[in-house]
């Protein structure tokens, strides 16, 4: 009888193979990122330096350990965090075009940072205070993103139309920029320069302390995210169905918003507003894994996000020039084609992620 045959549905092997493949690509790009830069270090010497740091040129050692490794790590962490944050937003808003930058969440984080950098940073410029200042900057960014996220959510509960919500996101972003311009007008020139450089996006300017703060925060954000994987799968079918299978909507929203704010806020605080990773990578993950399961998409987004920002970092320091291009510009040029593809693909933007 037909009903005796087991149902074949599990394509787990193909998916884990893909994950390993992508991990290998990420590792390769990480290595490539370590050997790329204005100071020429021979390929072999990079690995000698990594494993026998005592035996090589101290300058190489310094370049690798103080600059290139933290920079590559930051790029990977930022990419992973932004991609996961975008995935979560697309699921909770049931909107394929949701993302931390599109809905103004990054701008919110930027406002937090602007308030700290332009407004209060003069109180914390002393060396010992740097660590505290790192936390203040990041907490300000979390708060900023959480405030905008709550505003967007409040509106989206009343307005169901995807386009309207996107336009509102842009308006929130513009409002925040207006506040920032006012702050800039009243701030000192040195602070202003710090802020403008921050807005271009950068992975290389983090101090060791800041990298620590970033690592701890992103780990916490991912932990909260893992706790909400099942909830997000259930939310795919919409709020009514989700509640009918026992989902507590309120606590789920709180969990998902908490991790989204932490992830977006932390990255934005230290690396600047990096666009298009959050919106593009989740779609790339869905396309590659052919899955809507967040247990698959979560690791997928982590690896693909890391890959995208490693590539962006490599492009931004492409020879022949010795200086860095703004990372922001590179991610935009990489991400925008993907976003256009999404828009063309679902012409009626009423469907769910």
């Amino acid at each position, binding site marked *: 009888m037909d009903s005796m045959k087991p149902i*074949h*549905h599990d394509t787990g092997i193909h998916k884990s193979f893909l994950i390993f493949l992508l991990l290998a690509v990420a590792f390769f790009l990480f290595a490539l990122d370590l050997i790329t830069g204005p100071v020429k270090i021979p390929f072999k010497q990079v690995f000698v330096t990594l494993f026998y740091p005592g035996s090589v040129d101290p300058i190489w050692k310094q370049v690798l350990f103080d600059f290139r490794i933290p920079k590559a790590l930051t790029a990977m962490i930022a990419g992973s965090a932004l991609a996961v944050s975008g995935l979560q937003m697309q699921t909770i808003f049931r909107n394929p075009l949701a993302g931390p930058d599109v809905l103004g969440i990054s701008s919110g984080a930027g406002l937090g940072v602007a308030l700290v950098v332009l407004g209060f940073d003069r109180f914390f410029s002393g060396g010992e205070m740097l660590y505290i200042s790192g936390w203040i900057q990041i907490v300000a960014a979390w708060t900023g993103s959480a405030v905008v996220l709550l505003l967007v959510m409040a509106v989206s509960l009343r307005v169901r139309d995807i386009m309207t919500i996107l336009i509102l996101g842009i308006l929130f972003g513009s409002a925040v920029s207006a506040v920032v311009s006012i702050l800039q007008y009243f701030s000192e020139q040195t602070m202003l320069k710090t802020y403008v450089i921050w807005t271009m996006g950068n992975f290389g300017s983090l101090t060791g302390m800041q990298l620590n703060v970033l690592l701890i925060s992103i780990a916490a954000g991912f932990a909260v995210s893992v706790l909400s994987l*099942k909830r997000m799968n259930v939310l795919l*079918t919409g709020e*009514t169905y989700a509640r*009918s299978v026992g989902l507590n909507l309120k606590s789920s929203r709180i969990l998902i918003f908490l991790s989204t704010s932490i992830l977006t806020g932390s990255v934005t605080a230290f690396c600047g507003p990096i666009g298009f990773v959050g919106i593009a990578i989740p779609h790339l993950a*869905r396309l590659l894994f052919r899955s809507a399961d967040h247990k698959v998409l979560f690791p997928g987004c982590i690896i693909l996000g890391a890959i995208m920002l490693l590539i962006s970092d490599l492009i931004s320091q492409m020879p022949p020039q010795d200086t860095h291009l703004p990372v922001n510009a590179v991610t935009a040029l990489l991400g925008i084609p993907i976003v256009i593809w999404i828009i063309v693909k679902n012409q009626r933007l009423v469907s769910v992620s």
Partner: protein
Amino acid sequence: MDHQKQNIIIDLKDLMIGYRTRGVQNAFTYGPINLSIHSGDLIALIGRNGIGKSSLLRTITRLQNPVGGNILLLGKDDFSYNRAELAKIISFVSTEIVGVQNLQVYEMVSLGRSPYTNWLGKLEHFDHSSIQSAIDMAQIRHLTAKFIYQLSDGERQKVMIARALAQDTPVIIMDEPTAFLDLPSRYEILRLMNELSGQAGKTILFSTHDLDIAMHEADIIWLMLNEGIAEGAPEDLLFRQQFHKLFLNSPLEYDQQSDGFRLKKEIHKTIGLQGPEEYVFYTEKALKRIGFQVNGTNEDMIRVEVVSEGSGIIWILEAGIETRKFKSIYELTYYLKYNCK
């Protein structure tokens, strides 16, 4: 009666449903409702648009809070259950189209296991066998590897019902499960619902606008009228002439002869009809459709006689001194419609 009382699974006590809108006091309310649902019932909820059918279903599923009164679920107030516990007693199917990309049918059905799985949603062996039996019950085995967006409306609805079956609840509540479906799909869904209540012992409450289907398939009809809900077997309601209230100011009426609901016809004229029985049956149907009262006698001003002539049939119309012959029912009705009113 005692036997029935023991089997009560949901008890609505003075239940008031509706929406509380800020500023406006109770913008919409309906009630009080005092009804019981017995285990294994297949109940059809019928009422005009906007009377509150969806609100009632959503209130029982606790997707919406009652404005007053309470609901006893297995003898306990339903607010004493948390949402996860509730999800093990009542499942819900709506007409909402879930258009998730890259979600396979099997995965969709497996989401029904959410109340039972661990914090990561891991499916155990038992969950898989539950999902498979739900898939077999809904007869969607051939669809399991497909993606949701590849399905027709009828197939998608069966998948959503399978999802509710995998949820393994004694009660299933469905909001217009047959809306937007073509006729064969409607009957398939109803057959499935009938089997579920008859063989699998599920208690099913569903809203519908399909009066004919409800009359033939439901054990009980809840007829939601302005003055309250009339409850009973379809035949009870016919007997008590309850449907008239539903059709007040509407052009529908129940036609006993054909056991279905028809548009009321204003009778313009009477017409005589004679001929062999097998021809008369369809001719009469057509004449009624265009508003004639049909008599079997020869005394009317207008008369039709159906006769076989050679290899075919002809319809002979006599109106006063005029006599005409027609080769089909359509020709006959067309002529009558424009010349004999």
